[in-house]
């Protein structure tokens, strides 16, 4: 009986999580190309509110951290702090080639490396920069992976 209740509760929680991913956007040192595409994704033309995706100002309200660019020495501490400020369960989406491998900035004197060297990443979206359709696809893939 208790197990059944637990199962139902878990199902409801997963359903809510999948249908209401609130996002926060952080630029950890990218060239701003990916950020322009992310902002384009949030415009009425692509209307991500269809999937319940909402851009939040505060990391405390967010479920998904959308992160762009290689991690520079300056922004490493900030990125980690923002990640720690988010309440569990939290997910990270790395947008753009630089977020995946460091891209053209790989090996620079001021660059730590890609995002997964600093915080755990759930989904990578390749492209330089990826189109808004690709970003939406990436987030939808993340939501699909939450389905048990």
């Amino acid at each position: 009986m208790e197990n059944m209740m637990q199962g139902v509760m878990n199902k409801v929680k997963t359903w809510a999580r999948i249908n209401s991913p609130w996002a926060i956007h952080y630029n950890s040192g990218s060239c701003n190309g990916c950020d322009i595409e992310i902002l384009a994704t949030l415009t009425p033309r692509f209307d991500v509110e269809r999937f319940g995706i909402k851009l939040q100002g505060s990391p405390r309200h967010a479920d998904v951290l959308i992160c762009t660019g290689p991690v520079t020495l300056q922004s490493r501490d900030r990125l980690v702090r923002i990640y720690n400020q988010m309440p569990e369960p939290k997910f990270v989406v790395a947008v753009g080639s630089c977020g995946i491998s460091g891209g053209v900035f790989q090996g620079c004197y001021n660059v730590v490396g890609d995002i997964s060297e600093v915080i755990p990443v759930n989904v990578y979206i390749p492209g330089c920069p990826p189109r808004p359709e690709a970003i939406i696809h990436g987030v939808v893939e993340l939501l699909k992976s939450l389905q048990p």
Partner: protein
Amino acid sequence: MNINFPPLVALLLFPGGAFLLFSGLVFEYIDRKLVARFQNRYGPRWFQPLADVVKLLAKEEIIPTGVVKSLFVALPVIALTAALTSALYVPLFGFKPVFSFQGDLIVTLYLLSMMTLCIGLAGANTEDRFSLIGATRALTQLFSYEAPFLLALLGPAIALHTWNIGEINAGAGNGLWFIIAQPIGFVVALVGLMGKLELPPFDAPEAETEIVAGAFTEYSGRGFAIFKIGRDVELVIGLTLVASFYLGGFNSPLDFLWKTLLLLFVTAALQSMFARLRIDQTVGMWWRVGVLMVLLQLVVIIIGQQFAPVVQPALQSLFGG
């Protein structure tokens, strides 16, 4: 409709309590969908507010360092409680108010202000600078819209010689609707309601582009969800108040539906038409324009009432009425 509900049922199930919570979510969905359609996009799915609230309730709640813990946990609950309590005095869904006495209009307005007060305290409680600025702005805004909103709702009360919401609701349907008899009062009441709910032209207290999320910046999970539900409940109660006062009162649930949805449509249109006002513009608008207009309206009503016994027989003898 004059059905008497037992107080406990009214408080917990219908028309207050659980049913009110769900209708709050439905009203939030309609509001968001309308704004989305005005912006030429599809907008959220019908279960979106429910999914948001369930997700927030299931999330981890972080209690930041430097806050008074008991206050941090209690404030959202107090805000929701006040909003739910005020539901007992208004003609929700077209049914008679569960409790009523002379002067319950004032009590209801104070209960509705508890929400803003709690938001202000919640912001001032944390050490975060953004929530502190948000709290200051929320309280500043409270001082600017509260007086005109109260004066605007007093118009029908003075015209009908009663400060009882139930009696005003019953009396508003007789004769000319107050939206035509007191148009200034209606406009101020509707815009005041938008200020109360911090809807877009008046959303400086939680301006995302400047101060992160205002007073809610440090709230996550459960506390934020309860604040959100409280806001939705207040949306329903505020719309009920304004619609019953100015749109001829409610006699049936159907009456309630079309009148509140009409008001919601107008507020959604206003939300998508205007850009955010600065906090000094908000205060200036209310005290320079809003209060003066409503005071003028009140003076006209009072003068009209004083002279009506003198003028009416004269008019009647003139026109043979």
